[in-house]
């Protein structure tokens, strides 16, 4: 398969320290790739390598099917980038900052600045100096700047930082729209796992500079453990019924008081009936699968400890 972005055995040392080691990423055209990892895992380092701000110590990077070192400037023209906190000329207005970006990118399509501002709902604030913007507004303007030239590959480093819930919703919808309408490929790093779970097609999980797993959300849902989660009025009685009356051994009482039944043979309807017949008050009950956060913790939890 041809990938839009591919890294092979990528490694970066700073002094004697091994920052990242043997990272092989595969980002398909038109997908949203969520790059996950705890703080200090090396997410930003990889994004800096992919955007050419740092030079790899080992390995190769292929962008748009070509080796990055051979055709880097041309590749940059097809990319939109927001790394860490977006930098602006703070005495200039949001609109002037976007116009400058357009000049440097050599992109002169009429109305593109207005369009980008509209995408992030920043039209009204566009003429105010950036120094008066809040952190969330700067993040949104950074994303407007990154999408201004209709990039084929959008690289976003923690794009949801500093955004309020409406801002997060806006960016989530924007990313989906960019993928669906323009076929834009998105590589985003984040530690807000529930948000990544809702938008990403593929996730790469990084820990201590190593890529632990690269998996599509489809595969992940197949791999994830499915269970029945029950919230009851009396969890001790419920546990007694499960173990003694129904002879179920694979269940767990969680910290929040809910009970998870991992026995795949048991059906939701029969469990409801049996608990009710034993006079256990059921507040909620349903089948669930592991969240990305749970999967993530399972994968990197030991390393973190």
């Amino acid at each position, binding site marked *: 398969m041809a990938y839009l972005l591919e890294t092979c055995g990528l490694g970066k040392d700073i002094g004697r320290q091994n920052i990242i080691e043997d990272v092989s990423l595969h980002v398909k055209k038109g997908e949203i790739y969520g790059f996950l990892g705890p703080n200090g895992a090396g997410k930003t380092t990889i994004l800096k390598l992919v955007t050419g701000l740092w030079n790899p110590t080992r390995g190769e990077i292929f962008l748009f099917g070509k080796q990055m070192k051979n055709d880097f400037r041309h590749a940059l023209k097809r990319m939109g980038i927001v790394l860490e906190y977006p930098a602006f000329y703070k005495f*200039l207005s949001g609109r002037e900052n976007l116009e400058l970006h357009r000049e440097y990118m050599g992109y002169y399509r009429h109305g593109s600045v207005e369009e980008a501002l509209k995408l992030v709902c920043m039209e009204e604030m566009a003429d105010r100096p950036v120094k008066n913007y809040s952190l969330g507004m700067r993040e949104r303007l950074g994303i407007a700047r990154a999408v201004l030239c209709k990039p084929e590959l959008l690289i976003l480093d923690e794009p949801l930082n500093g955004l309020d819930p409406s801002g997060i919703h806006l960016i989530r919808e924007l990313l989906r729209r960019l993928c669906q309408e323009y076929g834009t490929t998105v590589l985003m790093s984040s530690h807000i796992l529930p948000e990544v779970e809702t938008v990403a097609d593929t996730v790469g999980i990084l820990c201590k500079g190593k890529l632990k797993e690269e998996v599509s959300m489809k595969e992940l849902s197949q791999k994830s453990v499915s269970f029945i989660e029950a919230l009851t009025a009396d969890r001790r009685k419920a546990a007694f019924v499960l173990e003694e009356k129904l002879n179920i051994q694979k269940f767990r009482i969680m910290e929040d008081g809910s009970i998870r039944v991992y026995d795949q043979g048991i059906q939701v309807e029969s469990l409801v009936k049996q608990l009710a017949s034993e006079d256990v008050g059921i507040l909620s009950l349903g089948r669930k699968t592991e969240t990305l956060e749970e999967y993530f913790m399972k994968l990197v939890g030991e390393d973190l400890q």
Partner: protein
Amino acid sequence: MKKMIWLEWKKNRIGRYVRNALIMAALLALFLYAMAFFGIANDPETGIPDAAPGMLSISASTEFLTNSAYFVFTGVMLASFVVNAYKNGIMALMFTYPVSRKKILCSQMAAVWIFNFAALAITKILVYTCLFWGGKIHTASAFPLDFHMESISFYGSVFFTSAVVTTIGFLSLFAGLFTKSSKAAVIASFLLVFLTQGSLGDKSLAGNTTFLLILAALSVTLAVGNVAAAEKQEIL
């Protein structure tokens, strides 16, 4: 390249620097005019100018003050255009544009050099013009008016000095880049003023063309080295 230089001026709000350069030129002209014709530098008891050796003509004072002012002005501009750009993440943004890094650095340096060269040359000509017309109005001057505005060599000398002084002013950039501090760049520009007015043993460095040319050559060498290293540079 022309467009890149223009963009540098635009995003750094060159209008502010034009205004400041105009104010500085007016103040310098006023001060030197007052020195020459209102006797502000004269000893109140003797009535003759109280000037250091080597500063007994108006051109020496004019050159010293205009050059010193522009060592500092160039340092401040470089701190803002280049050193701060590294510190506040603007350079990282610039390096993600599909433009050669060498071109980016060259345009930043050229934007500062062209502005300061032009501003210094214009300031010098403005000050000398004021003194020239002052000489026509006033019957006496506290300092000898030892310049000839009618001569072409006068303008050649103004442009040559302006170019050399602006180039030397770039040494402060490298101090700022080396220490990653815009304050260091400005402080270095003040040190340049002392260095170019100092003495080595019993030899004065003020007005020593060879010494100034050595400093200018060092500045050019550092600039070339800095630009050449840009493509491999890792930032953030």
